[in-house]
């Protein structure tokens, strides 16, 4: 469905490398997630796929249409939702939807079944101007507008950024329903916890793809013991753990510090005694299952050490 080969994109005459030799393929009907922090290159990749940008080198194809040469075909089969809210704020919900339907040469009625579940949630506000909607409702409207022409592929750039937790969950439920309609969905997000909701994910950082796999497989590849640690003085805890022998990664994760060691046989008690030696109190240590974020940190670390050498 989507095929990206050796794709490179730079800005400002090559001084900023947004994408470095990226390879990616997405199957038809897949819900594919592009996971990475801000500035990783997600938006650049999506803009190339939607024919809005021209890559420096490499190719990108959707359904065998080249994203540069066949941009006209590409624009017929894609539904695109940019990262920034891009509907007409001075038009009402209803007017926005009707406008985008007619721009794509269809009508709201024709594909109503596709957006029904989403649209019924914002329908009570259909006379309200789009600019006056809440964040979650804006995204639902934007999704409706991107869907109204029944695209083959839906490209969503950070649709859940700045949206409350409840709306985020609803949004992902909708994506799952759309997947059942046979629409291929390519979605990017900086939220690692959303990764597990995708069929397959690509971890991306600094314009490079760290790993592409099913979320569970990525977690399974994590072959270290992971500890969640807490103590009364969190700042000192971080500083001390950084001095730990055989340290692999240590980073703050909510109320805990996540810690991995190069010593795969390490035990909770080893860490405990080290911390006690450093006068920490209220120490809590537990070995836990890794999340996608832990995997991301692990991959990112490997990637960074390659860069340094």
């Amino acid at each position, binding site marked *: 469905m989507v095929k990206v080969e050796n794709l490179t994109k730079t800005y400002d005459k090559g001084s900023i490398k947004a994408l470095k030799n990226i390879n990616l393929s997405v199957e038809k009907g897949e819900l594919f997630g592009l996971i990475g922090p801000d500035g990783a290159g997600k938006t650049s990749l999506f*803009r190339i796929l*939607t*024919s*809005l*940008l*021209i890559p420096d080198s490499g190719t990108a194809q959707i359904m065998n249409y080249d994203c540069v040469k066949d*941009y*006209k075909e590409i*624009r*017929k089969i*894609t539904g*695109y939702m*940019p990262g*920034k*809210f*891009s*509907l*007409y*704020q*001075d*038009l009402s919900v209803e*007017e926005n939807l*009707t*406008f*985008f339907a*007619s*721009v*794509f*040469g269809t009508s709201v009625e024709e594909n109503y079944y596709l957006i029904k579940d989403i649209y019924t949630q914002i329908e009570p506000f259909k006379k309200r101007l789009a600019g006056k909607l809440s964040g979650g409702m804006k995204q639902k409207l934007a999704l409706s*507008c991107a869907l109204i022409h029944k695209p083959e592929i839906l490209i969503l750039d950070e649709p859940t950024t700045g949206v409350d937790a409840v709306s985020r969950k609803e949004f992902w439920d909708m994506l799952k329903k759309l997947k059942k309609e046979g629409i291929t969905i390519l979605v990017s997000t900086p939220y690692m916890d959303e990764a597990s909701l995708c069929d397959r994910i690509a971890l991306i950082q600094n314009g490079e793809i760290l790993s592409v796999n099913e979320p569970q497989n990525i977690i399974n590849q994590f072959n270290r013991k992971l500890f969640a640690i807490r103590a009364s003085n969190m700042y000192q805890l971080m500083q001390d753990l950084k001095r730990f022998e055989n340290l692999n990664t240590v980073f703050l994760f909510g109320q805990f510090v996540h810690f991995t060691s190069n010593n795969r046989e390490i035990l909770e008690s080893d860490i405990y005694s080290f911390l006690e030696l450093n006068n920490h109190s209220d120490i809590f240590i537990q070995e836990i299952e890794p999340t996608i974020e832990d995997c991301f940190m692990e991959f990112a670390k490997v990637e960074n050490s390659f860069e340094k050498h």
Partner: protein
Amino acid sequence: MNRFKAFVRKEFYHIFRDKRTMLILFGMPVVQILLFGFVITTEIKDVEIAVWDKSKDEVTQNITNKLLGSGYFKLVKNIDNEQEIYEAFKKGEIKEALIFENNFSKNLNTKNNADIQIITDASDPNIANLIVSYTSAIVYSYTSELNANLKIPMQIKTESTMLYNSEMKSVFMFVPGTMAMILMLVSAMITSIAITREKELGTMEVLLVSPLKVSQIIIGKVAPYVVLSIINVITIIALAMSIFHMPIVGSLSLLIGVSILFIFMALALGILISTVTNDQQTAMMISMFALMLPTILLSGFIFPIENMPKILQWLTIIIPPKYYINAIKDIMLKGSDLSYIWKDVAVLLAMTLILIGLSIKKFKIRLE
């Protein structure tokens, strides 16, 4: 067709829901034309005068009556001492004072010579000049009447006729210029802002990733402004005709035809500006400096091109409003038909085609 209709409808929503746009579109033309018509005036009418008639005879009465009967002057008060004159000037009651000398009629008959002193308020020198020349002209015409049956040896008289605007009404000169300015503003500035607004808000990104062709986006975007600009042209002409009694000597349809050509030129300019900018602020600044100032200063609207330094005169060759103002002035005031103004129209047409071509070529189908 359906796409186009939806696009135009959307554009009208934008226009009607934005108070600022509405104000510029409909409020400004009316205000501009009224301002130029009433405030900036180079003609005189009902000038307040005071008369100190020291002689009070038949001749001075006649001259005073002639002055007041002309419609240019209005008698505010009769005075009988010098002090009063300066007070009246200071209070701003009068703009001119006339003093007839003693024994005016007698002097005229015996010495063939009599004096009138004219005192004017020259804090506005142009108006003062006009007042003096109007007064002198009226007095002169009165003396000519007196001399009608006398034979004066060897006299050269100049007689001037102001063709096409015989009453020197300045509003007639301002209407064509104001039309050019408003059409530039509405067509070029507002369209460039309307297009860059889509870029700024990110909606252009969505429009580009749709099956709309570039030409459909452009035409859909500017079509409403064509309609509104034509309404503006008609409003201005109607105002000029009804309030300022401006005669339109030539063909009204030719006038509107040339105006539509100019509207297209301005729209193309607006699109061109929007292709080189990404935000509304810049688009507005460019429109202001690159379009409005030349339209006001270099088009012959306010300052005659013939009086400019040579370099500026050459520069006016590339200023489209110059040709437009030329053409419609001829149509309105001289009643010229196409065979007289075809040169101006041809230049405008060529400029329009080049600009349309350029703006379509430069309009980006992508984000960079």
